[in-house]
């Protein structure tokens, strides 16, 4: 089962319908008990870092997500869901999940901010199985003012250039985070989600029964 964490950080129907479109139904979940049953936890979200931390904690989802990550189960963080994987953010004072070492920082040497729109992305070898066919530098839709600076460069799955090269995707084991919005990135975004889910199926991390139900 794919569980999308619904924790009051924006309308998540767009994320859910992107999964539907590629043939992988996903549930919006706002109860920690139900979230525990998810094979893949998807954590989207747009908004402030501190409020996201507070909302996740008060809903009980924080500990479920941490436990899920520690067990090495599949996790997909989108935008804020990527940033929360790190230790903290310049945007707030709360601590992140700390699954990856490093801080989330604000764009300082480029205008305009927010970084809003379609940006070319360079995937690294870490994401070889997710790359689109016939497209060397796919464009995805971004809207953010902060981005992660991972201590461990080996987890960087993709970078983009906006004034400087910055990290837009991380991946280690079954944990993945992306800064852009696949649900707003038309064919490019759906293709990525499809390949990501297919890869989970092929490694036995997602049950096919759920995928076709």
């Amino acid at each position, binding site marked *: 089962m794919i569980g999308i964490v619904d924790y009051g950080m924006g309308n998540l129907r767009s994320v859910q319908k992107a999964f539907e479109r590629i043939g992988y139904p996903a549930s919006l979940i706002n109860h920690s008990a139900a979230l525990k049953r998810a094979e893949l936890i998807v954590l989207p979200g747009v908004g402030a870092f501190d409020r996201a931390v507070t909302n996740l904690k008060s809903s009980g989802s924080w500990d479920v997500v941490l436990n899920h990550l520690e067990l090495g189960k599949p996790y997909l963080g989108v935008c804020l869901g990527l940033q929360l994987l790190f230790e903290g953010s310049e945007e707030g004072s709360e601590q992140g999940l700390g699954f990856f070492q490093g801080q989330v920082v604000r764009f300082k040497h480029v205008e305009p901010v927010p970084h809003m729109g*379609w940006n070319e992305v360079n995937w690294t070898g870490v994401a070889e199985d997710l790359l689109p066919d016939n497209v060397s530098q796919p464009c995805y839709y971004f809207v953010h003012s902060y981005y992660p600076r991972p201590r461990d460069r080996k987890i960087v799955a993709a970078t983009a250039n906006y004034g400087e090269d910055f990290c837009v995707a991380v991946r280690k084991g079954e944990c993945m985070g992306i800064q852009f919005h696949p649900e707003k990135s038309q064919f490019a975004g759906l293709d990525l989600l499809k390949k990501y889910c297919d890869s989970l199926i092929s490694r036995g991390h997602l049950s096919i029964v759920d995928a076709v139900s």
Partner: protein
Amino acid sequence: MLQRRIIPCLDVKDGRVVKGVNFVNLQDAGDPVEVARRYDAQEADEVVFLDITASSEQRDIMIETVRKTAEEIFMPLTVGGGIRTTEDMRKILAAGADKISINTAAVDNPRLITEGAEQFGSQCIVVAIDGKKSSDDNWEVYIHGGRTATGLDLLDWVSEVEQRGAGEILLTSMDADGTQDGFDIPMVKRVAETVKIPVIASVGAGSPEDFVEVFKQTKASAALAASVFHYDKYPVPVVRNYCREQGVPVRPPWKGEKNEKIEL
């Protein structure tokens, strides 16, 4: 590299797309859901709905239109027109819009910008501004669809809007309105140099050359047009390809696998 955005805009009245010059002789131009789907298939970078419904009782129709459209498209959707309170904003965002655009309400009550940004995040607050040239290098802000002069200086207003937390400025030149002679380059240039947030240039586009012009001569992040795209005179792909030929960084058409609609 960040790509320049090409954005079609739909005027929506009572749940239908309308077209006409300066809101007169309005003609029905179809179902907004279908039109937005077509733009999505053409790989427009975003789409904007402007609700020009007169009465507030009809606003619920717009919410339903937004809900239906958001179900069908996979690109950002901005909705403007008649939004006066943060509660109006919440309804539109809950229906599936990514950004909301305010114009007259922002001038009447600038705190609305701040409150919207605090509640929903700057990224979804677009402030639309209608400007008209008053003298060389000076423009005045107009409201009520261009009918009322405010005495506000355009460059002062864009700075205030930015400082109050707007995420983007949708800039309309009343001097270029309806001309199809191209975007108002001097105005767009000055505004885009004044603020650090993205500026969307609007009104005046009559040909693909106009898009190249505004992107080459100004720092505008995006260019918006309605009739150029509606009449299928220059569909989005034609404008995009011309921009690319002329060296403007706009998004290339997708050449990978396409996940067409799967019925569940």
